């Protein structure tokens, strides 16, 4: 396969980036997208040029590291597929592919296609946990969880935090990510004590990071490599409004440390 790649090149966080065009020949259709970029980088290194920086780790579609926008689609054109699991057979010989990093003010570009996604970590720090007493683990069946809740919770827990929802959203909102984390814990009995405080704190951190509001376009759901549903957003909105209108949870650590 012969391809033309238009790739966003940016030296560092403060540099001004621009697109550069690279022709690439001899691409096998069995390569993954990242392997194709590996081939490009080998060539660039051979020419004494700076290789294209992109984030990757497991290359199995489960770590959430990789991801950039290919021709306007985060993670490329295949539904429910991370870019490391995307294969070149999806594209045609002679295609021109435009590669851009996730675009959001909350995700500053570090280099080329790599963005800083630590804003998502800070949202998690605000409420993506449950507090339990330490000591011996209790019997696995002591807390009953209905099949319905366990299924929905596990579906929400499949989120790998890759940031494709933010990249796809016309408002650069991280509501799909945030709501998946809220729903994942809020649907389980273990998550109930902090359920509404969690929604309140995580939502407020979401806004503080500079993510946009949710307009219910549905682009996030379509781009998500793990099939996270927008119903999580409805649930998290409900939890948040409950915390504001009906029962206001305490914020911050309690005075007695408990």
């Amino acid at each position, binding site marked *: 396969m012969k391809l033309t790649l238009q790739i966003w090149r940016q030296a560092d966080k403060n540099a001004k980036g621009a697109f550069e065009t690279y022709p690439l020949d001899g691409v096998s259709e069995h390569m993954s997208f990242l392997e194709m970029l590996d081939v490009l980088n080998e060539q660039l290194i051979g020419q004494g040029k700076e290789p294209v920086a992109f984030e990757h780790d497991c290359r199995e579609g489960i770590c959430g590291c990789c991801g950039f926008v290919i021709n*306007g689609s985060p993670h490329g054109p295949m539904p429910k597929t991370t870019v490391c699991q995307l294969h070149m057979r999806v594209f045609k010989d002679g295609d021109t592919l435009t590669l851009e990093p996730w675009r959001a003010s909350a995700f500053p570009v570090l280099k080329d296609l790599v963005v800083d996604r630590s804003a998502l970590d800070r949202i998690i720090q605000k409420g993506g946990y449950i507090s339990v007493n330490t000591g011996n683990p209790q019997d696995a069946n002591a807390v009953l969880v209905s099949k319905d809740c366990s299924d929905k919770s596990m579906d929400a827990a499949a989120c790998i935090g890759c940031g494709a929802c933010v990249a796809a959203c016309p408002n650069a909102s991280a509501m799909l990510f945030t709501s998946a984390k809220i729903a994942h814990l809020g649907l389980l009995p273990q998550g109930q004590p902090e359920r509404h405080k969690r929604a309140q704190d995580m939502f407020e951190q979401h*806004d503080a990071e500079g993510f946009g509001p949710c307009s219910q376009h549905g682009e996030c759901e379509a781009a998500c490599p793990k099939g996270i549903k927008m119903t999580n957003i409805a649930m998290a*909105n409900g939890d948040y409004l409950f915390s504001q209108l009906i029962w206001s949870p305490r914020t911050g650590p309690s005075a007695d440390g408990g």
Partner: protein
Amino acid sequence: MIDVGRIWRSSAGTKAVMAATGMILFGFTIVHMLGNLNVFFGEKSMNDYGAMLHAVPELAYFARVVLGGALVLHIAAMVKLLRQSQAARPQAYKVVTPKASTIYSRTMRFTGPVVLVFIVLHLLNLTFHGVGSDFLHPGFKMQNEHAPEAYHNLTTLLQMPMWGVFYIIANACFGFHLWHGAVAMFRSLGLSGERQLGTVKMMASGLTALVAGGNIVIATSILLHVVK
């Protein structure tokens, strides 16, 4: 204690305000459209309906205050969210390939202002007749301020081609606006889970078609002199 400022500052809270006010306004338009169907039942029917709405002036003013307030909050929420949205993505993509968003959802920020212009003109046309009357529809005199002549006012106005066509276009925009808004508002208020989503979509689309379609049918019938 409900902290209104805190709710307003959060984007989810602002969205809830937008959704709740949208729901009030949508509810009003359903009643408004159904009431206007009286035009098909003749002059007396329409005029009686108009007089009925003004029977208790306090009630009419109460409704105006609620609806006006809802509209102002709806617009304020839009301005705030639009700014936040623009700040969240300072650099646009070179290539955008929409997958799930619809023409209805992507044009909300344009159909909204069209509907606002329509509302202002509509109020000047038929509620506050005196204001700008000579400029807006020269040669056309509205009858009686307290609306016993609702039929005459409505039919005369919409038989002017410019106004008839404008009302039809504005209501088509309104339909676009509702097609997305009526479903989205349930999600913004946390009212549509997986189980309710199908019902919400069906109900919202049905009511949208009813309101926008009904208004367009009324305006078209008058414009084409089906109703005289």
